[in-house]
């Protein structure tokens, strides 16, 4: 077993210690790199690093990560760069006419009632997304919360091509529509 595989084995034996080590040693490097390269805030970079850690663990659990080419830190950098790329695109986002991605909640009673109905409908939809299980759940979060495109999702979740991601996402959306 080489040194890189030892990192995976160490994680399986003591996940807390391994991830603590990554937060202690790898996160500062990622944040330092991100600040210099993109001038993104430290808090945003810390959030992105945390998401990268969760994706790494999801990949380990699903069996999509069984072998390391480099170290866990370089693996996290690879995921983090994709997440950061999507994050920066999102920062520059502009809406289309009629885009209701940011619903306005009115202060009147009718508005409050409407807002409550919207919240209930979103909670119901989330329950259906959650019921998809993995990997559909993560795929939809990465697509619709983080704004990753199919190529980026293929890269971070370890799929062979963006087409595989598109097909998987289509199946998830079809299931959601039928539920």
């Amino acid at each position, binding site marked *: 077993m080489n040194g890189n595989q030892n990192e995976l084995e160490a994680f399986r034996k003591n996940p807390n210690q391994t991830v*603590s080590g990554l937060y*202690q040693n790898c996160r500062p490097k990622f944040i330092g790199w991100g600040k210099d390269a993109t001038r993104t805030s430290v808090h945003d970079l810390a959030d992105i690093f945390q998401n990268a850690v*969760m994706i790494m663990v999801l990949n380990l659990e699903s069996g999509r990560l069984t072998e390391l080419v480099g170290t866990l830190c370089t693996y996290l950098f690879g995921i983090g760069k994709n997440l950061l790329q999507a994050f920066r695109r999102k920062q520059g986002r502009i809406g289309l006419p009629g885009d209701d991605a940011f619903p*306005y909640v009115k202060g009147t009673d009718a508005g409050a009632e409407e807002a409550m109905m919207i919240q209930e409908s979103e909670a119901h939809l989330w329950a259906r997304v959650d019921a998809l299980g993995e990997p559909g759940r993560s795929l939809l979060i990465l697509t619709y*919360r983080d704004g990753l495109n199919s190529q980026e999702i293929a890269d971070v979740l370890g799929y062979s091509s963006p087409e595989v991601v598109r097909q998987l996402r289509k199946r998830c959306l079809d299931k959601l529509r039928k539920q």
Partner: protein
Amino acid sequence: MENRSEHLLEAYFAHSLTEAEAAELTSLLQSDQDLAAEIRFRQQIVRAVQDKSLRAGIENPDWAKATIPPSGSGAGPAIKRQMWSRYMYAAAAVVVVLVFAWFFIPASSKADLIASQTASFPNKMTFKSLGKEALTVPPEVIQAFNLYDQQNYSAAAPAIEKIVSTYPDIVDYRFYWGVSLVHIQQYAQAINALEPVSLSQNDYQTVSLYYLGLAYAGNQETDKAKTTLQRYVNAPDGVTYRKQALHILNNL
């Protein structure tokens, strides 16, 4: 759905539409009801997953727990080992400053306290043409945000208020209006501006709690200020103005 439409939808949700593609999608949405329904469905998904974490998808509870970062409420051993000496220095410095303040600085009013803890929020709006004249960001919006960028909040607040009236559905404008009002200590009006932002799912929801908390404090609504600032400090996502919020909380 046709490949072209699917490509445009993917680019839309990945925030990578070019100006030409945005115009093409806008045109398609006007003529294709199925596509319009599809984009609305996916926008619902955007809102449903907005505050959800990837962590809940990790089945092994030990592995899920290990992903919690060492900062914040779940502070782990790593950051404590690395940072404890800095925390000690910082604590010592705070004690020295407090002792100095106790003896040499007269007690400041609550208004001064709030003003001193009102942080500037950077303008994160990115304006560009969508490719059609009708969709171009109007000059009054650009001008209002120029005033905001110059931190000329007394001029920015009425200018942004006008664009909020024109575009009541764009919550982003409301947020910057509220921030400007907090800076010029128009706290009652700031509460009106910021409450809707704090209630809806949007990119500014968490940070709006900080400015709303300041507005409540400035408006003598101490209980609401404490609750709102505490919600901000406890927010699971990045809390940029934690230090300022805690300072206010400890002095209300």
